[in-house]
């Protein structure tokens, strides 16, 4: 059974359980939103998505109003536009005007809407001077509630996606604010640092602390890949700038995890460019001077080119194989490496060395 509705004069068949917003988006009609996110239950907090429904006394929140038979909706009528502009003005009046240096510049839904609706920043308001900047010691998450528009997506992400209930709402009215636990630090409020709140924050109120200053959305190339840590297989976007990974963001199309990631997946990437990384093949000095292997300390490492390193390795492995038999060579492949690499290690052990002595850390 479908419901016949009209949006902006366009006749549409909607599902009876759908909201105006869902029906509109399904048919390519854009209604702006801020507090709404498809992964989270609608709250109707921000009032950006107000639309004109024929016969209704007041504007209706498209995100939270179900369609009914014969409903006639104007999404961009004068009343809606005026209302949206005013709501945006109310937000901007109390939001710092520092897009020039803001971490979220280019990845800010408030900025995009202010642009789309040509809103001027009003002269009144606090301009976001309420709260200390970087107000939480969490090592991953940078908190600046001056930029918060109280959409509460962070609260919902923490409750509905992560089911951790760290973030909540405190005070009331104009003094309303987001708090962790009983106004403690995030970690004290049992935060797992998954960063779901950051992923769902539409503004620069919650951003990645460890990516701070390294590059902003328009400068970044996103490369979708699969996480290197556990077996869940979350997909994520590596954010790359100037040949370096500078952060990780959620990829909403990830098959297993959607927007969700854990602390390691989202914030455990900086090992990639760690100075400890091996950058050249290394061999022990004794191998270059054709001496026997010393007992005890193996001596200095020497940087060599690939040919040298691989020649020595091939020689040594071949020697063991030829002298003591193929089973004298043990091959440990890696559960961290690619399928293709594991296939090759298996082929290497069996075809090249001739042994089945291949295993990996599955047992450990």
């Amino acid at each position, binding site marked *: 059974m479908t419901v016949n509705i009209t949006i902006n004069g366009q006749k549409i068949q909607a599902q009876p359980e759908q909201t105006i917003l869902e029906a509109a988006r399904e048919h390519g009609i854009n209604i702006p939103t801020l507090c709404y996110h498809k992964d989270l239950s609608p709250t109707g907090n921000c009032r950006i998505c107000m639309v004109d429904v024929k016969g209704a006394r007041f504007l209706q929140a498209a995100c939270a109003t179900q369609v009914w038979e014969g409903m006639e909706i104007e999404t961009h009528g004068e009343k809606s536009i005026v209302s949206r502009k005013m709501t945006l003005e109310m937000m901007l009046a109390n939001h710092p005007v520092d897009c020039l240096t803001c971490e979220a510049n280019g990845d800010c839904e408030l900025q995009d809407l202010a642009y789309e609706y040509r809103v001027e920043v009003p002269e009144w308001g606090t301009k976001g001077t309420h709260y200390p900047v970087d107000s939480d010691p969490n090592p991953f998450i940078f908190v600046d509630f001056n930029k918060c528009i109280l959409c509460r997506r962070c609260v919902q992400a923490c409750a509905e996606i992560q089911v951790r209930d760290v973030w909540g709402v405190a005070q009331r009215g104009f003094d309303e604010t987001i708090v962790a636990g009983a106004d403690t630090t995030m970690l004290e409020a049992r935060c797992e640092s998954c960063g779901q709140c950051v992923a769902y924050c539409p503004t620069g109120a919650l951003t990645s602390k460890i990516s701070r200053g390294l590059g902003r959305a328009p400068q970044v190339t996103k490369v979708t890949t699969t996480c290197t840590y556990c077996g869940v297989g979350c997909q994520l976007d590596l954010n790359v700038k100037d040949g370096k990974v500078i952060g990780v963001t959620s990829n909403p199309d990830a098959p297993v995890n959607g927007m969700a990631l854990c602390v390691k997946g989202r914030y*455990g990437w900086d090992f990639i460019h760690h100075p400890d990384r091996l950058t050249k093949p290394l061999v022990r000095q004794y191998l270059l001077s054709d001496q026997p292997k010393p007992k005890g300390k193996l001596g200095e490492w020497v940087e060599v080119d690939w040919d040298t390193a691989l020649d020595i390795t091939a020689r040594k492995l071949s020697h063991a194989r030829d*002298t003591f038999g193929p089973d004298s060579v043990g091959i440990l492949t890696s559960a961290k490496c690619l399928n293709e690499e594991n296939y090759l290690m298996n082929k290497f052990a069996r075809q090249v060395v001739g042994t089945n002595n291949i295993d990996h850390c599955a*047992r450990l």
Partner: protein
Amino acid sequence: MAGLAASFGSGAMSNSMDDIAGQAQAFFVIGSNTTEQHPVFGTMLRRAVRFRGAKLIVADPRRIDLVDFATLHLQQKPGTDIVLLNGLMHIILQNGWEDERFIAERCEGFEEFKETVMRYTPQMVSETTSVPVEKLHQAAEIMGTHKPMAVMWAMGITQHISGVPNVLNLANLQMLLGNMGIPGGGVNPLRGQNNVQGACDLGGLPNVYPGYQKVTVAEHNRKFEAAWGAPLSDKIGATVTEIIPDILEGKTHALYILGEDPLMSDPDTAHIRKCMEAVDFLVLQELFPSETSHYADVMLPGASFAEKTGTFTNTERRIQMVHKAVDPPGEALPDWKIITRLAKRMLHGRTLSPDAPYAGWEYSSTADVMIETAALTPLYAGVTHERLERGERLQWPVKALDHPGTPILHVGQFSRGKGIFHPIDHIPPAEEPDEDYPFVMSTGRVIYHWHGGQMTRRAQGLLEVYSEALIEINPDDAARMGITTNGSAQRVRVSSRRGSIEAQAWVTDRVPPGMVYANFHFPDASANELTQAALDPVAKIPEYKVTAVHVEPA
């Protein structure tokens, strides 16, 4: 995964995380600290409990975080899983909650199994496991009356000398309840590493070729000999837990290790050290110098996941693309290129059968490798990078290029035909607490770190949140020994028959009295200095979860 293979003919997670979290009426999580080890799946379970009202039974000696969400927590003594499961199945049978039709139509060996289980009375089970009889009944009732129920486990089940029997018994439970081959049910071992499933799938095991084709089966052997153009061994090889100790036996002379740190991850570190000192030649292919690199002769700089393109297979058999985002640092190379170059060198001068289609090592990319893999691996027959890049979602078996993959295994029929009930009796741990070593130590990981910590100890934020090894100890035990979290006596020394470590105590009711919990993320206090190389006789997995130790203030 030898246990599951014995019961059903296939040893992987039978269901998908999505159908489990979305459709199970109940979850039984045993020996899996899901919210810390598989965090995103952990949150899926939490969501199911909170928003869908699914029942959750957690069986774990520790009060892990997931217990906060559990309908019921069964806090069994370490090493008594078989008894616990037999007890639960006893009560299920007593109440007629078993799925008679499923058992009759799809299983065999039921009567003998039933005989064994009926010997495990709730009273006796309660005494062995220290789980109250009342809770056993409650758990059995939830299991018996909420179907489908999904069973999840991880290393808490397998890292015992009874690892395989433990798994067999979980398979018994799910057959008994008829929870196999349906959405929201199944036997679901959660695989630890990102690509441990793929490493197993693609021949990284001593007994099988890619796709679990046994090296001992002549037909498989011939197939690979023909493909690779070389004579192959039909003798089952040695496992990691044998290869390294075999150095001292004079059997292993050279080691080629890709991305692993046995000094951190293998049991009984002192012994491993001795072995490594004795090996003739050790080549290590790594991202970082590791504890093991002290003993290496050659170190080859490999590439991280961000520096190469290919695929990983996750715990639910889902094959997914990994994409190169940046170049490897310096002269480091993607591992597949290193392996290829090494292979070519070693093959130099050897003649391989000219008819063999896959004898050579000429690959222009990992996509080429996958084509060869698919050709030789029926489970991956239909997998190509191209399909994955198109956005197709593939879980093996993917039988052909037009096959959509298999989200749930054992639908209608088990891989081996009928499922087998195995009667399982209690196997006590290899080492039990005694006067000298009165505590049981269990080991594992914490949410902020990964395995030997090579990567996570180099992630600034993770190190800031969890900066050193912590030994979890119960408040009662701590008080008795004068250990407090904030006082002066906050460090503890934990010793076993094999070694001793010192670390900060974390006084917490996460562990019951008489138990301590340690991790192996930090080299200066790695739990594996204490663990023993007691192995499950079939799976050769060490008993990490039960070590007798002595604890004292340091």
